[in-house]
């Protein structure tokens, strides 16, 4: 038996995380085939066949596969998976939406969001928002797995030459219809899901001074947060409050400016990947969770920070 990876793409190009998924899938089973379902996606089939880890590409075409509705993909995948022991996809919204439907139709208990392949039936996955890691073993004959892309390296994309096989489409599911898709335009990212958050605390001294925070937020395309003290003092409105009675955020980068780090605030941001603290009190509790702490006067540090950011060529968005 071998592994079947469901390709994530938009018919014009492969979505980047598919490359990470391929790496993961081939760790499960080196005999990896990929399933490409789409509309006019022949180029993608070719790109896939060039990936050394891919041993075969199964290509299915139909107009109603254009917008990867899970209800359409699932029955087809169920049919194709007859010959496969593992069905794999990456665990972003595409895979999360699709894979459980497949798993239920296969009467299999899916394993979601794995971060490590220990053996073909044993995996490591995060639970409780990553506060614990579980080693799990699937006892189902067929296994449905989604993988966390950032835990696997993207695969090589050239020097391979896998055969491409055409597969017949399945019937259309008529009860769901795709209407449209929009890239989200925003002045600022939403606090709850922003990749970067910069927050101000009582140290900001007044609402006017938050413009220093805004400037950096603009530069980093960050959302703006605040401590309870800043909100209580009226510096900024309360939907910016990060903390136990405010929002809980898990950005890649959290910058706490003039925030002492009371427990209630930490509860709202301590799972951030990287925490930066800027505070003139070197003993403030915030420094105990900060990866990078800068003991400095924020009124000097913030403008300097902006200056340094401007010097950099590219900011990761």
């Amino acid at each position, binding site marked *: 038996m071998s592994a079947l990876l469901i390709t994530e793409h938009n018919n014009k190009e492969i*979505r980047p995380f598919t490359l990470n998924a391929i790496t993961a899938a081939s760790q499960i089973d080196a005999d990896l085939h990929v399933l490409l379902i789409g509309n006019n996606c022949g180029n993608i089939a070719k790109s896939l066949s060039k990936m050394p880890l891919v041993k075969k590409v199964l290509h299915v075409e139909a107009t109603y596969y254009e917008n990867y509705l*899970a*209800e359409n993909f*699932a029955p087809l995948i169920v049919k194709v998976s007859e010959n496969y022991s593992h069905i794999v996809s990456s665990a972003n*919204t595409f895979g*999360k*939406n*699709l*894979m*459980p*439907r*497949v*798993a*239920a139709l296969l009467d299999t*208990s*899916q*394993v979601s*969001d794995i971060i490590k392949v220990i053996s073909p039936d044993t995996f490591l996955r*995060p*639970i*409780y*928002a*990553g*506060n*614990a*890691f*579980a*080693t*799990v*073993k*699937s*006892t*189902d004959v067929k296994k449905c797995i989604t993988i966390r892309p950032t835990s696997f390296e993207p695969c090589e994309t050239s020097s391979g030459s896998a055969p491409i096989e055409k597969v017949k489409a399945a019937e259309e599911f008529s*009860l*769901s*219809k*795709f*209407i*449209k*898709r*929009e890239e*989200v335009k925003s002045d600022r990212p*939403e606090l709850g899901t922003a990749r*970067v958050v910069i927050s101000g605390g009582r140290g900001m001294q007044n609402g006017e001074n938050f413009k220093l925070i805004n400037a950096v937020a603009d530069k980093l395309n960050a959302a703006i947060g605040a401590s309870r003290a800043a909100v209580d003092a009226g510096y900024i409105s309360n939907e910016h409050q990060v903390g136990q009675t405010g929002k*809980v955020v898990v950005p890649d*980068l959290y910058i706490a400016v003039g925030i002492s780090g009371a427990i209630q605030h930490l509860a709202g941001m301590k799972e951030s*990947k*990287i925490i930066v603290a800027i505070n003139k009190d070197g003993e403030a509790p915030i*420094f105990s*969770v900060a990866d*990078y*702490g*800068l003991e*400095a006067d924020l009124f000097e*540090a913030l403008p*300097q*920070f902006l200056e*340094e*950011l401007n010097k950099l060529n590219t*900011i990761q968005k």
Partner: protein
Amino acid sequence: MKILVAVKRVIDYNVQVRVKEDGTGVVTDNVKMSSNPPDDNAIEEAVKIKESGKATEIIAITVGVEKSQETLRKALAVGADRGILVKTEGIVEPLAVAKILQKIVDKEKPDLVFMGKQAIDDDCNQTGQMLSALLNWPQATFASKIEIKDKKLEVIREVDEGLETIEVNIPAVITCDLRLNEPRYASLPNIMKAKKKPLEIINASDLGVNTTPRVQQIKVEEPPKRKTGIKVANVAELVNKLKNEAKVI
């Protein structure tokens, strides 16, 4: 319309989860539990639909231990009309939950099934999609806006690329995201009144569903500890580290 909302009792999101020393799981004894936050969004959406006159009954359902009644009571306090507890012991996988819900759907015949997109304990994000497959219904996952248009739903979903709008026929399964709405807080009089609303308790075995897990939990361990941070000397060093070491900007 009749709406079925599935809710789950999980460890409160504020609790610092601790792994048991013997590695068999996380500590749950004497730990504060609450309703799964995305499920609060699910209940809220159902209540809003009822308030707009488009639904006549909301049933809250949960699958779990006896104490899960607390979570049903909360749903009842916010506006559900009655509750169903399907009693189980130990870990119940999404597939089993989906099968249980399928039996209940067959019995109660709701027009819409709402639930949070994922539970914050196991982070599986599977149940809604699985239920939808078993029922052969449309699924609308990660919903951030819902509009009822006659016998269909127009749903805006949050996806990686941005927002996707789909139209699904009723009946359908919808899984809710945190941005769908602002869950209301139950007032104390409503919390007190909720104690009198009907709450039915069924055993999972009575429904003929086998809840034995197929995925074995071999062990649970703590993630690598957060490394002790460093103090940087100045802003230039900070920016340098963020770019080249942490790679977050």
